């Protein structure tokens, strides 16, 4: 090309003193950044291809590599940032919609980072989780509003279907197709080992993973990919995906090149065809229609499985959640605007939706105001990054959280946000067999188990500090939170006081 408008964002810096020319960087880069020059016996790099995924950096045995932000810059302009200018160049060239992956990276407030937790002093003892029982078990599902007794006066213990979790964290929906088989297997095995659930996402369930059904949420999305009776029956719960935090208002899109034989079988679509989910469910144009689908799925599975309705956090989320709670759904999953995706139009990812903290707080309040909070469990997702975020979400009112990006990071994801290229060097967001094999589920599942075991310890530590020894006493316990640097309106929506109050 005669005129090169787009300059590399990163530079690959190689310390030639340390490079032993083992060529692992070259062999491991699917973007073909690195090249071996035989004549001079040296490695060189083409910065323009680098997505900053750190695969080469992480595998270099002599730590000879680092990726740095390119100092190359446009003339300074706070309004016209380099990013804004570059995006115009891209579109002027391509005429297309900009695509991105993973969660919204823009500079919006992260409310989790503006809330602080309480701890006991003097009047109420803190509890040491190493010495006292500390419970994180939760049950998800609708709770009855009254009890009934048999002729002997014993409580009749019939309940709507419930899910028992060892801790209030589940792996959120990521479809087979958007992520690799090995990533799916890692999630499934980790969920089984941890006593929690993972979510198939909208791409159906590979037949080899049916054995983890007790720990599986099967998703039904607008494309209905891979949905059949055995699939519905295989899981512990069914999730209707109405929306996704990363791209509210649009459906999923899996390019045909990712639809190989296994995915084609699992999704029940021809090999090589694009799997495009419609933006809405074409049988759901209103809340009554949702109710019909909820009951269709319940009918199909003998009322034995709870139904989750997942929505993206949008402006009217509280009213929508109220409608869902009255639709017969057992749980509502709310996905905040920082939630990840394998591919989304950049503008939608970066400009649509709500922070999960505000959405969660307003939904929990609304359902309580209407007296229907016990009819549904609330699952909050959309960038839960640590155990502290989990604790804060529970204190705001969630029964449980969904994590997905954090799980992928545990599997090796470096958030290079290039999933949509299909060339994930970490074997996660790819279907290329040579790349997929880079994620060994024996290692992956162990890392996921480690991550959540660590989080569970931390959750117990924080609960113990607050003098709480069972997670249900933390749920909706907003007095345990204080805001820092938040304005009156934000505090009001979050339903918390400011630090110092």
């Amino acid at each position, binding site marked *: 090309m005669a005129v090169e408008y787009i300059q590399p964002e990163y530079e690959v810096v190689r310390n030639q003193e340390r490079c032993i020319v083992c060529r692992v960087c070259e062999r491991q880069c699917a973007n073909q950044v690195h090249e071996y020059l035989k004549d001079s016996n040296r490695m060189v790099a083409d910065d323009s291809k680098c997505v900053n995924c750190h695969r080469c950096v992480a595998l270099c045995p002599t730590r000879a590599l680092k990726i740095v932000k390119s100092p190359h810059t446009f003339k300074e302009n706070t309004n016209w940032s380099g990013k804004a200018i570059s995006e115009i160049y891209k579109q002027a060239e391509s005429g297309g919609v900009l695509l991105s992956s993973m969660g919204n990276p823009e500079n919006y407030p992260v409310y989790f980072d503006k809330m602080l937790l309480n701890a006991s002093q*003097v009047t*109420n*003892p803190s509890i040491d989780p190493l010495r006292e029982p500390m419970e994180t078990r939760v*049950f998800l599902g609708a709770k009855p509003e009254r009890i009934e007794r048999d002729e002997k006066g014993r*409580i009749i213990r019939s309940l709507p279907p419930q899910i028992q979790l060892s801790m209030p964290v589940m792996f959120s929906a990521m479809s087979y197709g958007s992520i690799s088989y090995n990533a799916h297997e890692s999630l499934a095995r980790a969920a089984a080992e941890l006593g929690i659930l993972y979510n198939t996402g909208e791409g159906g369930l590979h037949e080899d993973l049916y054995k983890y059904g007790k720990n599986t949420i099967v998703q039904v999305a607008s494309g209905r990919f891979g949905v059949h009776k055995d699939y519905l029956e295989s899981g512990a719960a069914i999730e209707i995906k109405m929306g996704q935090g990363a791209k509210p208002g649009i459906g999923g899109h899996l390019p045909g090149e990712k639809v190989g034989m296994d995915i084609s079988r699992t999704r029940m679509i021809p090999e090589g065809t694009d799997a495009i989910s419609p933006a809405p469910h074409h049988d759901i144009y209103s809340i009554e229609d949702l109710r019909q689908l909820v009951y269709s799925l319940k009918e199909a599975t003998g009322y034995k499985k709870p139904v989750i309705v997942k929505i993206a956090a949008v402006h009217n989320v509280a009213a929508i959640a109220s409608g869902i709670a009255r639709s017969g759904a057992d749980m509502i999953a709310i996905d905040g605007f920082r939630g990840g995706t394998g591919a989304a139009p950049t503008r939608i990812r970066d400009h649509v939706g709500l922070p999960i903290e505000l959405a969660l707080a307003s939904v929990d309040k609304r359902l309580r105001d209407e007296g229907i909070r*016990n009819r549904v469990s609330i699952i909050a997702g959309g960038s839960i990054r640590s155990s502290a975020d989990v604790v804060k979400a529970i204190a705001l*009112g969630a029964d449980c959280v969904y994590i997905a990006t954090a799980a992928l990071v545990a599997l090796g994801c470096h958030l290079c946000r290039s999933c949509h290229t299909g060339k994930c060097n970490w074997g996660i967001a790819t279907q290329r067999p040579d790349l997929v094999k880079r994620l060994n589920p024996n290692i992956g599942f162990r890392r996921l188990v480690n991550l959540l075991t660590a989080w569970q310890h931390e959750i117990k530590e924080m609960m113990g500090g607050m003098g709480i020894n069972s997670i249900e006493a933390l749920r909706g316990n907003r007095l345990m939170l204080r805001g820092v640097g938040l304005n009156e309106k934000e505090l009001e929506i979050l339903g918390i006081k400011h630090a110092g109050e």
Partner: protein
Amino acid sequence: MYRNVSGCAISGIISRSGKRFSGERIIESVATMRERSNGLGGGFAAYGIYPEYKDYYAFHIFYNDNAAKKECETFLEEHFDIINLSRIPTRKIPEITDEPLIWRYFVLPLPTKLAASQLDEREYVVRCVFRINTGIDGAYVFSSGKNMGVFKAVGFPEDVGRFYKLEEYEGYCFTAHGRYPTNTPGWWGGAHPFSLLDYTVVHNGEISSYDANRRSIEMYGYKCTLLTDTEVIAYMIDYLHRRIGLTLDEICHVFAAPFWSTIEGKPKQEREELKFLRNVFSSLLITGPFSIIVGFEGGMMALNDRLKLRSMVVGEKDDMVYVASEEAAIRIIQNDLDRVWSPMGGEGVIVTVEGVKN
């Protein structure tokens, strides 16, 4: 929304045979634990004290001034048949000052109003109490059960007892509370016991689950106006016992639920029941230190938190059962005990009077 955090002394005495005795003894018991109070609140609940009006709801009401009294009485007349009203007799003593107007009414819901409301009688009374307490500025109903009454004030409990001439009342059960609030000045309404209908609660502790419990119970129409742990517990008891129909034993398993590890080791039937209660009423689990004595028509229940982070001792002599924060508070009034023990965390002690329904 500022919450009261407190330490405290509690005491309770009940006659299993329903024999009535003077309030003198409970004063003596709670006075022994003066160290556990700081003079910012004391109070008593007394059961079986109004036999001549036992079929009427006895409302004890604080008024800030005559205007509040007038407004409240108008409301009462519109909703109830008032069979008797009077000032509650008090004794002027230097230790108790700044008293509000303290009145007592024996009432029954007006049959026409009750019928029009389509509520059961007790629910009707509860709604009226909430309307007064949240809607009439300067009026506060602090007792609303039948054949029982709450007496409370700012002061040390023994002074509060003398102020209300508690020794002149005879009942089959008394509970008492001396308060050690660690913030907010004393307010007469903020003293224990807290009550709704005939349920009364005295409480020593600070519950870490407070806001989870409060936000949950407020869903069912209760308004936590006083922002204390004890008020929430009182409403939770009313909700679970009167409205949901749980037994007191089941309520203990909700409030101070056994740990899952304990539940797993129980026989199947019991395990399933405990699991059901923990799951369905998970928002009403109470964590953090507490010892409570719950009074109700025909009985008394004592309960410690699941880790037993607060002291509580039970003593028995013949038909009498004593509960107190400290054994000394029992020994001072009955040193010759048949049995004395500290209940385990989460182990409810439920005492009922023979021949009285509960």
